[in-house]
């Protein structure tokens, strides 16, 4: 690493920091969909409780009740501990420090890909591929919506592949360096405790890379005695977290062939996959301009097939296999789609490589070649900034305006719930603008809040039916099985109505929602006196009114 690397990494870090911290300019409150609240909430509770137990607290466990495994966590604790540690470094700040952690960790892949490309193909390919990695729209949306541990886990992959490559190469060159295998195992622990599914992908890569090297060199690129320690290290460190995660997988696996046409696509989303635009090459990659260079890069790698090149080909093949496990009914697309986030890393790496490989097809003098390289680099940067950056910047900038996050009114109510009702009191809540907002209130209250807007309802009968369904659902909960508090949140719709200006339709919709909530409130509380009534939010205690 020399001066230009330090300069490039500094620029990449600051550019990423500026980009991913954009939502924090509008509001200090965290943002995202249910997944984001779910993960933020446990870290928030861990910080306050000052402990990281294996079992989840009751208020948290009610979100995804798993029967016998009611208190088993769906995500390993280390991710949350990292947020707690960062909050500690940030002086205990409840929002900003944790939000900044999320912003910085969202683009870790920029640095791991930079490292790999720098080691294999030099500075310029590293810079170009990393630059593009700031902007893939599906990663940006994963950051905004809350699939954040997946992004971190996937960022480990290039480093693990590098270590494995170094180890295999050292064996083939008769200068064994088992340290790289141990480093690969330790890095794999890091990936596994962030998001376990990535380990399957990494394992498939190992197998493919070994097979190709064996075919190419007719030698085994491993020593069996070296294979003893890394699995032990992995199992000792990551093993205890794995059963809890696997216990969340419902149903048995029945292998059968289906959707064979998916094999002819990189990833073909089923008709009912939410947000299909996230799987559209043109949308997520700033148009088609990277595709020719991706194909050129693949062709060049296949033609040259050095050991470094095989790393990328095995990576590509491993990801392809993982993205098509639904064909064998091993995973549904909802699961495989998470690994689709890893596509940008390999596509951009190969596209940057393919782009600069153009130079090898042109016969030029040394000086002319250097000038041509600078010209190509400049063109690539311009293309990235013109086509890839704007959608990413506007998505991040415009996402989660203050009303789409928890508001100060709602935070105040959440704090009141935290301080004034018992830990095991089930709370039914109706009224927040979105389901995610209700979940943020749930998380920040540290109380078991059941949102009443898990689906759209229109009439009082539907409202009552939804409430009864929730009442029935909580009967299976272990420590408390009845709803004892009600929250009616008119604040969002009141703000919406008051700020609607001349937009009569919006005003009418807000009024309609307020009326719906009010009907349910009258029906369930029979005009009792609320125990909290502030900022358009009311709380009632059931059975004592």
């Amino acid at each position, binding site marked *: *690493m020399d*001066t230009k*690397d*330090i*300069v490039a*990494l*500094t620029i990449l*870090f*600051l550019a990423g*920091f*500026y980009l991913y*911290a954009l939502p*924090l300019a509008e509001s200090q409150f965290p943002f995202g969909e249910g997944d984001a609240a779910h993960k933020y909430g446990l870290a928030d509770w*861990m*910080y306050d*409780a*000052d*402990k*990281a137990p294996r079992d989840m607290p009751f208020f948290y466990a009610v979100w995804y009740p798993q029967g016998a495994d009611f208190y088993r966590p769906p995500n390993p*604790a*280390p*991710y*949350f*501990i*990292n947020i*707690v*540690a*960062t909050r*500690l*470094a*940030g*002086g205990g*700040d409840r929002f*900003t*420090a944790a939000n*900044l*952690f999320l912003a*910085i960790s969202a683009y*870790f892949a920029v*640095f*791991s890909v930079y*490292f790999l490309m*720098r*080691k294999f193909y030099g500075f310029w390919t590293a810079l170009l591929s990393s630059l593009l990695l700031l902007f893939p729209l599906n990663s940006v949306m994963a950051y905004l919506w809350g699939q954040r541990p997946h992004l*971190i886990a996937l*960022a*480990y992959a290039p*480093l693990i592949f590098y270590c494995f490559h170094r180890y295999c190469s050292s064996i083939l060159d008769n200068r064994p360096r088992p*340290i*790289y295998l141990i*480093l690969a195992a*330790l*890095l794999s*622990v*890091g*990936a596994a*405790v*962030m998001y376990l599914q990535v380990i399957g992908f990494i394992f498939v890569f190992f197998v493919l890379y070994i097979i190709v090297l064996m075919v190419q060199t007719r030698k085994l690129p491993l020593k069996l005695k070296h294979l003893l320690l890394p699995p032990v290290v992995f199992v000792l*460190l*990551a093993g205890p977290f794995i059963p809890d995660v696997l216990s969340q997988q419902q149903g048995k696996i029945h292998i059968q062939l289906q959707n064979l046409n998916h094999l002819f696509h990189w990833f073909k989303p089923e008709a009912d996959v939410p947000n299909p635009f996230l799987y559209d090459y043109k949308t997520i990659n700033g148009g088609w301009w990277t595709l020719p260079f991706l194909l050129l890069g693949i062709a060049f790698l296949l033609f040259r097939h050095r050991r470094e090149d095989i790393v990328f080909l095995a990576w590509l093949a491993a990801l392809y296999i993982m993205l098509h496990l639904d064909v064998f009914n091993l995973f549904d697309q909802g699961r495989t789609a998470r690994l689709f986030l890893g596509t940008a890393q390999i596509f951009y790496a190969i596209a940057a490589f393919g782009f600069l490989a153009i130079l090898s097809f042109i016969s030029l003098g040394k000086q002319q070649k250097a000038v041509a390289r600078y010209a190509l680099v400049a063109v690539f940067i311009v293309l990235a900034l013109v086509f890839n950056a704007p959608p990413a910047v506007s998505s991040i900038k415009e996402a989660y305006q203050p009303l789409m996050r928890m508001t100060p009114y709602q935070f105040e109510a959440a704090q009141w719930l935290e301080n004034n009702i018992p830990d095991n009191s089930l709370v039914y809540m109706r009224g927040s603008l979105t389901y995610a907002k209700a979940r943020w209130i749930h998380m920040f209250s540290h109380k078991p809040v059941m949102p009443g807007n898990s689906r759209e309802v229109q009439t009082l009968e539907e409202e009552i039916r939804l409430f009864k369904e929730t009442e029935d659902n909580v009967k299976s909960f272990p420590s408390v099985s009845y709803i004892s508090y009600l929250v009616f949140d008119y604040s969002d719709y009141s703000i919406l109505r008051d700020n609607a200006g001349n937009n009569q339709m919006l005003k009418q919709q807000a009024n309609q929602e307020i009326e719906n909530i009010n009907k349910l409130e009258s029906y369930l509380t029979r005009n009792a006196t609320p125990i909290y009534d502030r900022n358009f939010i009311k709380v009632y205690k059931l059975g004592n009114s």
Partner: protein
Amino acid sequence: MGLAAAALVLFGAWMIAGLTAVRVIAGMFVLFFLPFYFIMRNLDIEEDERIFFSFFLGFGLIPVIVYYGNKIISSLRVTILVTVVILIAIGLALPWLKKAKPNSQ
């Protein structure tokens, strides 16, 4: 050059997100990078490998160690600090131990 870059990063972070950002970045450096960097200095690998691996290893392994440590030390925050201090101490002690080893034979 490294120090200038670090200063620039902290200054940039301060401009973008204020003093908390400086604390968070400096904190992440101390919590996740330094402990494993001191340990990795004792390994026969290249310097850039050391730098990149240290951060990712720290980010992945320190919380795992903290999780287990929290079974012994009841306070999570204290466990984090103790873990980081112990790892840094191990990293700093390793060269001494390496030197001491031949003498003891």
